[in-house]
């Protein structure tokens, strides 16, 4: 009996093995399929727990409001908070919808900070740690169409901290094509100055390019006045604009005229950019800026700046490039001085280790005429090679090697820089 069963058993086993071996290439499917099913089970389990939570919340909300009419409960909320919701009855019956209600004002605060270490071979400098700017960004919708934005920085000085209001903007949105704002801005001139504000975590590198350095004078970093901005109906071309009128530079050229203009000539700025839909991540723009300078020392000059940029911000790769040409005309002598500056930055988010590594390189260049008096800008040729490592979604380590030469016939300065930058 057993001897008769044996061939059958062997046949069954062989047929199973053959079935498994002769399966078509699609038989590789079960592995991902099982994984997909497990994922689906996990999603369903999560959803069940969400629904149970939702149910519990509903029950507790109903229990809490029992004894008072639901509609009456919703009315004070409506008066106090501009609601984005149309129906208070619906709000009263749905905790989820009630939670979605937007209250005005609705202040959001985000902090930025960084700690730095630097060591260079520049004579007269010391290596060591420093505390970067401590920055608070504030954003608060005041109604569905009016918003406030603010930015405050604390900068370490030898004996104290400098407190500075970097931006303070109130904006009224009419629609996507026209938004009007008033206040103190980072001048909408070029790309970097409006894309990256204070808070080193926001930018890939440790430092800003020299041409847009905070405290620098090549271009006006800040601007006090008014600005109109919006989209331009242009289909897939994705055009946008911003135009501004304001005080321009103060009598100290690195500062904006926060407490009044240095002269009676307003500065103006106009910026047009494109974000083509076919090339998601690509942005191109041009800016022109006009002002009259009345510095504390030196001659009054007319200033005319043109800036153009091309950026691709998808991180694989990230490509930022910007060029600015600054023209100064001495009002008394009509002598013209032309300065040029540009930077090109290339970075790439590596696909390994959860996309945490991002090496980068930047080349930057500034040329100014030696003949221009009272102009603190110096010639520059510099390269920066570094890497950013995102420790979490909200903190990063960066390490950089920089090699720069400031001025003509000056020695090259090399240095190593490290930073941990974060937002909280």
């Amino acid at each position, binding site marked *: 009996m057993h001897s008769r*069963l044996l061939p059958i058993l062997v046949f069954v086993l062989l047929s199973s093995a053959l079935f498994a071996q002769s399966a078509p290439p699609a038989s590789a499917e079960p592995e991902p399929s099982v994984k997909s099913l497990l994922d689906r089970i996990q999603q369903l389990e999560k959803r069940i727990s969400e629904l149970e939570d939702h149910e519990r919340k509903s029950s507790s909300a109903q229990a809490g409001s029992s004894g008072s009419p639901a509609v009456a409960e919703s009315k004070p909320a409506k008066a106090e908070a501009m609601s*984005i919701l149309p129906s208070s009855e619906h709000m009263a019956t749905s905790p989820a919808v009630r939670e979605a209600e937007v209250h005005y004002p609705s202040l959001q605060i985000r902090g930025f900070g960084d700690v730095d270490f630097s060591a260079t071979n520049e004579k007269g400098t010391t290596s060591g740690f420093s505390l970067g700017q401590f920055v608070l960004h504030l954003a608060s919708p005041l109604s569905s169409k009016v918003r406030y934005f603010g930015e405050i920085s604390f900068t370490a000085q030898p004996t104290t901290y400098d407190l500075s209001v970097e931006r303070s903007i109130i904006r009224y949105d009419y629609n996507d094509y026209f938004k009007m704002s008033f206040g103190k801005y980072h001048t909408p001139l070029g790309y970097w100055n409006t894309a990256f504000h204070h808070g080193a975590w926001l930018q890939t590198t440790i430092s800003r390019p020299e041409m847009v350095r905070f405290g620098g004078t090549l271009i006006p970093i800040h601007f006090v006045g008014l600005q109109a901005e919006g989209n331009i109906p242009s289909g897939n071309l994705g055009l946008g604009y911003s135009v501004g009128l304001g005080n321009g530079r103060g009598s100290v050229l690195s500062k904006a005229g926060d407490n009044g203009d240095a002269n009676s000539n307003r500065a103006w700025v106009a910026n047009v950019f494109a974000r083509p839909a076919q090339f998601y991540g690509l942005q191109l723009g041009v800016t022109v800026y006009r002002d009259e300078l009345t510095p504390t020392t030196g001659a009054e000059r007319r200033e005319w700046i043109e800036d153009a940029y091309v950026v691709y911000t998808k991180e694989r790769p990230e490509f930022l490039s910007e060029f600015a040409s600054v023209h100064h005309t001495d009002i008394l002598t009509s002598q013209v001085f032309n300065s040029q500056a540009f930077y090109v930055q290339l970075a790439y988010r590596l696909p390994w280790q959860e*996309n945490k590594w991002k090496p980068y390189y930047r080349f930057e260049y500034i040329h100014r005429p030696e003949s221009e008096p009272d102009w603190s800008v110096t010639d520059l040729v510099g390269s920066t090679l570094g890497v950013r490592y995102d420790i979490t979604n909200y903190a990063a380590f960066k390490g950089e090697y920089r090699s720069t030469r400031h001025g003509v016939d000056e020695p090259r300065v090399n240095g190593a820089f490290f930073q941990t930058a974060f937002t909280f």
Partner: protein
Amino acid sequence: MRSPRKFALAALPSALAFAFLCLSLSGPLAAQNRDVDVAVVVHPDTPVSNLSLAEVRKVFLGDRQYWTTNTPVVLLIRAPVARERNVVLKVIYQMSESQFKQYWIAKIFRAESATAPKVVYSNDVANELVTAIPGAIAFIDARDVRPGAKVVRVDGHLPGEPGYPLR
């Protein structure tokens, strides 16, 4: 009494049929999960019924913030891990979770947007909010869209149609 050999021979086709059934079912079930479309649902009063994928992207990037002068866009997005969110990040934003968070922090503090997309924790809540909030737009698993909801065509296609991009 049937001999064991006969019993084994009789059982073999059944066993093979059962194995075949299991294999043939597991594939389509998994494929069904993978390929379920994610619908773009808007508040019933929103004056759009067809958007290109580029326009959906513009809306969800916060570059288009108003449907009409008086109707701001209200973005709703599922919480992390949800399949709808993964589809949105992959197809619309083309970003990782980390990049998405960084994008919105930067967007808000560049003063370009007042708020980030509102996070919703289930498709039921998404259905509820998109019906209740004027200007709301959400991505919902096509199987969970409530009857009567306003589903927007994307590149001229509705969920389930060939060429629908959100899956």
